[in-house]
């Protein structure tokens, strides 16, 4: 009971945190019809800056880390990526009025990872003084790529069964395309630069101090975007909205469970468990949609883009992040 109340008060205080406040602010002004927009060039640059910074920080710390400890969490990241897609695919297939291709693509997007949500997660963890393994950010691709690949494979299998139109899926091109996308490229470049060079000074004077501010602008953009994409959602079956509200938390909790096992087995830190859950709870907003558009062309983009952007991401950030932190305090003790 006390725990619930503490969770409630934490939740209200999160609503006032800049990360969430800017997200809600964006939704609000969009709903009020504001013509405020952030230029596309700024949006792209912010995403680049945030992921490069997250990568740099990870890379600078990985050098001193025990890489062996990364194996189990990385394996669990792959498992979560696949498991959440499979669960999503069959859950959505059961719901009425949903075309199977649309369901598979949506499950794929919710299984994949959002760089913006990851960035937001690291800020909240740091604000709360919760430490995590610096290499934990590198779990992103281990979850993201399997989820997208699996979704495309599942769609192809389904289409082949249905009417023989599904082509055999070449997996490597999808992996390559994911790694070459702007979000993962920036993250991996940051990790490499952090690992092999000495970016401390430029990190301390530029990437680190601008991080929170740029994130606040990105959250604003994502809020505006969430509202604007509601139109997409209105065109598709209501069950997508329900799935979009539930899946982020379900996926996050699955990852929390596996992270807990890694904690017990190999000492994966509580902060790392929370970050794994945050990553799992996020749904891809940058690289996932185009990959799915190309990989499952028969799926209606309105279904997965609408679900993820309008509901999935706000839920993942506004409810998911405080939820996993609260849970961690419950499970691992204050």
């Amino acid at each position: 009971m006390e725990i619930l109340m503490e969770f409630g008060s934490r939740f209200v205080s999160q609503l006032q945190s800049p990360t969430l406040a800017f997200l809600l602010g964006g939704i609000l002004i969009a709903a009020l019809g504001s013509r405020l927009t952030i230029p596309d060039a700024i949006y792209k640059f912010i995403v680049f800056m945030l992921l490069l910074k997250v990568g740099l920080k990870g890379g600078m710390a990985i050098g001193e880390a025990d890489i062996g400890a990364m194996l189990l969490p990385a394996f669990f990241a792959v498992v979560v990526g696949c498991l959440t897609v499979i669960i999503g695919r069959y859950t959505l297939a059961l719901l009425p009025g949903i075309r199977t291709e649309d369901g598979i693509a949506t499950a794929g997007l919710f299984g994949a990872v959002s760089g913006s949500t990851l960035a937001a997660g690291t800020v909240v963890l740091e604000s709360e003084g919760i430490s995590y393994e610096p290499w934990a950010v590198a779990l992103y691709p281990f979850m993201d790529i399997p989820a997208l690949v699996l979704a495309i494979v599942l769609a192809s299998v389904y289409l082949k069964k249905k009417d023989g139109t599904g082509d055999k899926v070449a997996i490597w091109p999808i992996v390559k395309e994911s790694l070459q996308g702007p979000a993962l490229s920036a993250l991996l470049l940051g990790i490499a630069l952090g690992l092999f060079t000495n970016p401390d000074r430029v990190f301390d004077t530029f990437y680190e101090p601008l991080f929170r501010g740029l994130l606040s602008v990105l959250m604003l953009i994502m809020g505006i975007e969430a509202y604007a994409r509601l139109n997409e959602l209105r065109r598709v079956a209501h069950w997508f909205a329900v799935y979009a509200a539930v899946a982020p938390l379900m996926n996050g909790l699955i990852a929390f469970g596996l992270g807990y096992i890694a904690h017990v087995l190999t000492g994966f830190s509580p902060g790392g468990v929370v970050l794994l859950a945050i990553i799992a709870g996020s749904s891809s907003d940058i690289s996932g949609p185009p990959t799915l558009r190309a990989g499952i062309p028969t799926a209606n983009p309105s279904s997965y883009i609408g679900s993820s952007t309008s509901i999935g991401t706000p839920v993942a950030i506004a409810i998911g992040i405080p939820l996993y932190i609260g849970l961690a305090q419950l499970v691992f003790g204050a």
Partner: protein
Amino acid sequence: MTQMATKLVIITEKVLLPKVTKIIQAAGATGYTVMDAGGVGSRNTPSPGRPIVSDTYSNIKIEVITASEDVARTIAKQVADKYFDNFSGIIHIGRVEVLYAHSL
């Protein structure tokens, strides 16, 4: 070297650009021109991977001038057959007189 030619215009989703240009070049056209475009049609697929509130367009307009009308129609057919079941787009052709070109 003024010469009557066919002007093929393809308006479709930006994600298809690399695929459409591959078809254009395979069909033997000597060149093409691309422009950003926005638009409304009957499908109106949302553009993946970019905020709709950004100030950019999510369609492209591709113009191909070909000496042979057949080449233009072949390109149009291949693009439509391969993509228009699942992607937004419209294709039309007209006649123009090419006054100067480095090759046609």
